[in-house]
């Protein structure tokens, strides 16, 4: 039951978007987020809409998959929408019933904030859908490297993420094994209320943690035996290279950002 997991949301592929350098994708995602926050009125979400639609089309992501990434947010969306709808100040009353009052301004804000959330999640999902976790790690490591000058552990962070990714399948396999062993001794993981089931996880989690710590010790020793001594003087087998498509992608995204800002200025 624990076997069929995929790491993150990554959808392997070989499209233009997949081939973009992870650094480009991470940076352009930040530009995209800025773009979302520059949208001044709900109408102008048409620009990020076109942008996301083009990216999705190019990377072979279907509309359905994008909707799926928003689905976990549905309650948050609903609450955001309702709160803004009922509690925004405004003069133009559209509807009133007792103390419940819906104003035009409130409705606009509600739509605005909900759209912002939807586009934030849908757009950034394109990054995680088209970039493997390892490529993301590499990208983050290189992008954070300048911070190591002021003592930020960028290499260590990336190494930790890589190792975590490497050990997820191993630990899942182990959890599966422990679970079966405990079930063979009469442990019940499936019945009872939430509290009872959480309590039943203790005999699974304790051995799993113990073994994870033992693994960590072993791995540290094995890494030292293979001359690991931090990021200093280390070379890399995987190297990231910018190409022409990275330049084009950057130009297009920045153009979309500029367009959004200008539209907000001219037609508020």
């Amino acid at each position, binding site marked *: 039951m624990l076997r069929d997991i995929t790491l993150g949301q990554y959808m392997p592929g070989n499209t233009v978007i997949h081939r973009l350098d992870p650094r480009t994708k991470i940076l352009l995602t930040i530009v995209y987020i800025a773009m979302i926050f520059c949208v001044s009125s709900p109408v102008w979400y048409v620009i990020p809409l076109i942008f996301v639609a083009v990216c999705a089309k190019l990377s072979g992501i279907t509309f359905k998959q994008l909707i799926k990434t928003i689905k976990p947010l549905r309650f948050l969306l609903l609450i955001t929408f309702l709160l803004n709808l009922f509690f925004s100040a405004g003069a133009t009353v559209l509807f009133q019933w007792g103390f419940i009052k819906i104003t035009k301004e409130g409705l606009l804000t509600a739509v605005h904030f909900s759209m912002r959330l939807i586009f934030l999640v849908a757009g950034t999902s394109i990054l995680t859908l088209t970039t493997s976790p390892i490529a993301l790690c590499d990208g983050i490591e290189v992008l954070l490297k300048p911070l190591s000058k002021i003592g930020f552990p960028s290499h260590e962070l990336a190494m930790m993420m*890589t190792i975590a990714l*490497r050990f997820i*399948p*191993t630990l899942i396999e182990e959890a599966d094994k422990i679970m079966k062993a405990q079930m063979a001794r009469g442990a019940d993981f499936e019945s009872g209320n939430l509290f009872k089931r959480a309590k039943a996880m203790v005999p699974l989690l304790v051995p799993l943690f113990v073994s994870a710590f033992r693994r960590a010790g*072993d791995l540290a020793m*094995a890494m030292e035996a*293979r001359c690991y001594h931090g990021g200093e003087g*280390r*070379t890399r087998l995987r190297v990231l290279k910018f190409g022409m498509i990275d330049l084009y992608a950057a130009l297009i995204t920045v153009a979309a950002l500029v367009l959004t800002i200008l539209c907000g200025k001219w037609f508020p």
Partner: protein
Amino acid sequence: MEYNEKWPIELELASYHYDEEDETPAVNQVSLQIEKGSFVAVLGHNGSGKSTMAKLMNAIYLPTGGKVMVCGMDTASEDDVWSIRRHAGMVFQNPDNQIVANMVREDVAFGLENLGIPREEMLPRIDEALEAVRMTERAESAPHMLSGGQKQRVAIAGVLAMQPDVIIMDEATAMLDPSGRKDVLKTVRRLNRDKGMTVVWITHYMEEAATADRVVVLDSGKAVMDGTPAQVFSRVEEIKELGLDVPPMAELAMRLRNAGLPLDENILTVADMVKELTTTLCPSKSNI
């Protein structure tokens, strides 16, 4: 001490205490010289100190008494520690807990990355190492898709890529199934034979030790026996006293000898036994 290339690893009355107050050290004044190009098996039951001794050989542990020299470098000198570990590569017991990267090829590169080898130089070395352990076609696989034996072969490749003088196999077959064990032993034997790689093979499996050039038996941190497999395993009674098994054929030969058959002392395998019995019992047939 002058470095003699003939002995890449030398232990001089080396001891190791896990705890300073501990009366009995895990390794107790062991002196040992490992000859270049040899395949040395270190045997001992649990807690005999064999794994501790392996870790003394690449400066994971520093001796609390005596001296350990690896390729002419004293493991106690801090400046040489990375050089020592490059020269004496180590493969550990648990195949899962020594693979760092998410892809076979990248794991083999891990040691090279740490040494700061330029990328152009890495690529041929990785290919060569993978070829040596016959894992070329799995170069792009994720480690969790491999069997235990395959994982250990990847670990061996990771060590090989660093071009060591000695490979120390610290019970590297203990957690494998019989076919994986055979597989790893075969791989290391081939490296020893074809490339002249010096191997220190730590194990508690007799049948693995029986194929070595030399067997060292440890007990309570002391080297109690040292010799060719035939010399060591012919001392059936002593080995049994140490709580170790004897290869079945060696024991059978001893019993037959005790019963009056004049058999040779070098019998370790079924093939040896068949040959010896044919010559002893039917001298006429052996001439055919």
